[in-house]
C-alpha cells in the first residue's frame, strides 16, 4: 500500500543573526514523513533540533527551502494562514508543558477547538475519548498546579490531539519527566500512533525516548547525518542501534537540560 506523504521538506535552511554575524543553524535539510510514522529527531545540544521542529511546525520561518504539509506549501503562506493552519492541522507537545495556569485540565485540552468551529457535543466526545486514552479523565477539573509533571504532559498531549491533527510535533516531551512518567507517556504516544494512526514527530536527545519511534533521524551541525528505521526490531534492539550511532556522532547522552 502506497502511504501518503504528510510532510515534505526540501533544502530547508535557517540562519539567525543580522548581516556580518550570521549563524546558519540549518544547512539544507531534506526530509519526508509518511502518514502514520513516528519520527524521532536526535542530535547533540545545539544541533538545531528545536529550530528544525519550529520551522517544520510553522512557528518559525525558513530562510530558504520549501516545506509541504499535506498539499499545502507552508513556506508561501501568510502569518494569518499559518496560524489557522497550525490550529486546525497540527498538534504540539512542549518540554515544559505550556499549560495555562488559569485554566483547568479540561479547559486547557479544549483550547485548540475553542474558537467554536467544532460543535460542543463533538468536542466533548473527542475530549472523553482522548482523556480516556491518556488516563486523565479524573483530573478534568483540576488546575495545573494541582497535578504532577507526568499528568501535565499528558494534558499537553491531549491538547495536541483534540483537533485530530494530521501531524503532532513534540519537543523533548519527556525532558522534564522522571523515567517512569517518561516511559508511560512514550508508551501512550506509541499507542496513539499505532492505533489511531496519528503521525508524530518528536525531538529528543534521549535514546530511550527515541527507541519508541518507528524511525530516528540524526542531526549534526544543521544537516541530517543518518537515519535508522526500527522495522520489526524489538525496542531493546533498536535502542542498542541508536546508542551506536550516537556514539559515532560524538553525542551527548548526558546532555544537560
Amino acid at each position, binding site marked *: 500500500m502506497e502511504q501518503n506523504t504528510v510532510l515534505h521538506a526540501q533544502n530547508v535552511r535557517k540562519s539567525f543573526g543580522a548581516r556580518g554575524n550570521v549563524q546558519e543553524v540549518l544547512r539544507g535539510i531534506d526530509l519526508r514523513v509518511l502518514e502514520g510514522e513516528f519520527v524521532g529527531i536526535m542530535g547533540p545540544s545545539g544541533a538545531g533540533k528545536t529550530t528544525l521542529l519550529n520551522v517544520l511546525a510553522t512557528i518559525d520561518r525558513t530562510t530558504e527551502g520549501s516545506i509541504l504539509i499535506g498539499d499545502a506549501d507552508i513556506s508561501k503562506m501568510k502569518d494569518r494562514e499559518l496560524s489557522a493552519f497550525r*490550529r*486546525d492541522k497540527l498538534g504540539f507537545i512542549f518540554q515544559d508543558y*505550556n499549560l495555562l495556569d*488559569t485554566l483547568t485540565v479540561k*479547559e486547557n*485540552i479544549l483550547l*485548540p477547538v*475553542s*474558537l467554536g468551529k467544532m460543535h460542543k457535543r463533538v468536542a466533548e466526545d473527542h475530549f472523553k475519548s482522548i482523556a480516556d486514552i491518556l488516563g486523565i479523565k479524573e483530573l478534568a477539573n483540576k488546575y495545573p498546579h494541582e497535578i504532577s509533571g507526568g499528568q501535565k504532559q499528558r494534558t499537553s498531549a491531549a491538547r495536541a490531539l483534540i483537533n485530530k491533527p494530521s501531524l503532532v510535533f513534540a519537543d523533548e516531551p519527556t525532558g522534564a519527566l522522571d523515567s517512569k512518567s517518561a516511559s508511560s507517556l512514550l508508551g501512550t504516544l506509541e499507542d496513539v500512533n499505532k492505533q489511531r494512526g496519528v503521525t508524530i514527530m518528536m525531538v529528543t536527545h534521549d535514546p530511550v525516548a527515541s527507541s519508541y519511534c518507528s524511525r530516528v533521524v540524526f542531526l549534526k551541525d544543521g544537516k541530517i547525518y543518518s537515519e535508522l528505521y526500527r522495522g520489526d526490531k524489538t525496542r531493546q534492539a533498536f535502542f542498542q542501534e541508536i546508542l551506536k550511532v550516537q556514539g559515532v556522532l560524538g553525542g551527548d547522552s548526558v546532555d544537560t537540560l
Partner: protein
Amino acid sequence: MTLFDLVIRSMRKNIKHYYLYFFALIFSVVLYFVFATLQHDPAVVKQSGGTMGTAFKVAGILLLFIAGTFVVYANAIFLKRRSREIGLYQLIGLTKGAVARLLILENTLLSAGAMAIGIGAGMIVSRLFLLLLMKLVGFDGFIELTFSKTAVLQTILVFIAIILLTSLQMLVAVRRTTLLGLFNAEKQGEHPKKPKAVRSAFLAILGIGLIAFGYWLSGRMMNALLFINMLVVLATTITGTYLLFRVTISWLFYQVRKRKQGHLGLNGSLSIATLMHRMKGNANSLTIITVLSAMTLAMLAGSYSLYYSTGKETRSIYPHDFMFGGYGDAQEEKETKQFTDELDRQGISYLYTPIEVLNLDGRFFEEETITSWLSEMFSANIVSEKQLQQAGIDIEIPDARTAYFYDASVYWLMKTTEVPFSVKLTNPKNELDVSITKVKEGNILNPPFAGTQLVVDDAFYQEIKEQFINQEETHRVGTFFSVMILNKDQQAEASEIYHDFTKENDRLNFDYYGQYESTMQYTGLLIFIAGFLGLVFLISTGSILYFKQMTEADQEKRSYATLRQLGFTVQDIMRGIVRKQVFVFGVPLVIGLLHSIFAIKAASFLFMSDITLPASIAMAIYVLIYLVFALLTVGYYRKTVKAAL
C-alpha cells in the same frame, strides 16, 4: 566596578521598567508644582484674599496625600516587577545592604531627574492653569505669571520627603524578602479556589443587597435621623462594593464557568479565567478606586453646579439689583434718593419703584406643614403682585384670595410640602387663614429684608391691609425701594457706587451684582480645586489600573506565546484581552458612576438648579479619561502578544 557604575548600567538596562515609574513621578511633580505656584502667585493671592488661601492650603494637603499615595503605590508595583533582578543581585553575592544602597541610589537619581523635568514642565503648564483659574473666578485683567521661588522650594521639599518614603519602602522590600520569595514574587497570583457554596452565595447576594439598600436609603434620608442615615448609606455601599469585588463577581464567574463545563472558549479563557485568578488581589484597590471616584464625581458635579448656576441662583435670591428700605424709617427714602442721584450723575439709567409691604405674624397650623425643621411661627411679609410687576419683576399672579409662598432660606425644606395648605395671619385683634397654592423658588424681595414673603393679587392685598392695619398698627406697613439697572453693562459700575455709598453711610450692603461677583469667585475657586483634584485623582487611579495591567500582561506573556504556538492569531487573542479590559476598567467605572449618581441625587436638595448637565459633563470626562487608559493598556497588551512568539 563601583556601585555608581552598576547603578548607571542597571538603569540603562531597565529603561523599560523605569519609564513607568518615572512618568508617575514626573506627573506628580508637575501637578504639585502647578498647585504650589498658584498658591503663591501674587495675582491669585490678591484676587483671593483670606478664604481662598485656606481653601488652597486644604486642597494642597489633599493633593499631597493623593500624590504621595500614588507614588508609593507605583513604587510598590515597580519593585515587584523588578523582584527578579533584585534576587539576581543577591545571587551574585551582593549583600542586602548593598542591594538596598543600589536601589536607593537609583531611586534618588531617578527622582531628582523627575523633579527637574517636572518642575520645568510645571512652569510651562502652570500658566495655563493660572489663566483657567482666573477666568473661572471672573477676573479678566492682564495676568502675568511670576516665577515663584517658594513654589520650587516647597515642591523640592515635598518630593525629598517622598524620596525618603520610597527609599524606606525599598529598604523594607529588600530586607523582608527571601531570595526564593524574590524570584517568585513576579509569578504570584492566587489560584482560584472552589467557593464554599452556601457562604459565597450568601455573601455574593449580600454585597448586591447592601448596595441596593444603600441606594434605596439614599433617597429617603431627609428626616430627623439625617446624619445616621448618611453614615448607614456610606457604610452599606462601601461594604457592598467590597463584597461585590471580593465575592460577588468571582462567584458569578464561577457559576458561569461551571455551566460551561470546560468549554470556556478562547475569549472566556482570556477574560473570565484570568480575572478570577486576580480578583482576590485586586478587590481592595478596585473598591477604593470605585468609592473614591464616586466621591470625586459627586464633588465635581456639585461644585460645577454651584458655579454653573451662580447667576441664576443669586438672581433668585436677589430679585432686585438694589433694595433700600425698612419699616417706618423715613431716612431710607432719602438715602435711596442720594443713591439714585449719584446714578443720574454717572449717566446710569435705572428703574425706581417703591414697594409697599405688610408685615404680619404667620403661623403654620396644618399637620403636614409643621415639620421638626421649622418653627411654627414666622414673620410674614405680604406683597402685592402689582407693585412687583411695576418694579420689572416677571412673576406669576396667584388666584384671587390665595398666596404664593417665597422664602429662599427654607425653600429646600418647603419644596416637597404638598399644596395647597393654609397659614394663619394674626395680629392681636385679627386672624385670617390664607391658602398657599404654590411654594416658589427664591425670594421676591432682597435679603436682609426678605423673611417669608407671601405674594397676593392687588385686590386681596388691599383687603388684608384694611382688615389688619388700624391706627396703632402703622409700623406694620413698610416701604422698600427697588432700583433696577436697565443697562446690564452698567451693573458693575452701579454696584461700585452702591458699595462706596453704603460704606460712607455705614450701612450693610446686599446687592445683586456684588453677591454675584463674590459667589462667582468663591464657586470658581471651588470648581477649580475640585476639578484639579478630581483630575489628579482620576489620572492617578487610571495609571494605577494601567500599571497593574502592564504587570499582568508581562506575567501572562508565556500564555500568549503558548496560544500563538497553538495557532491563535494576535487578533484572536486580543479579542479575549479586550473583553478583560472592558471588565477591568468598565466595572469600577460603571459602579463608580452609579454610586455617584445616587450620591448626587441624595445631595441634590443642596442645589437649586438642575444638575443633570454638569453631572453629565463630569461623568463624560471621567469616562473619557478611563477610556484613554483602557486603550493604553490594550495597546500594551497588543505589543506584548505580538512580541510573545
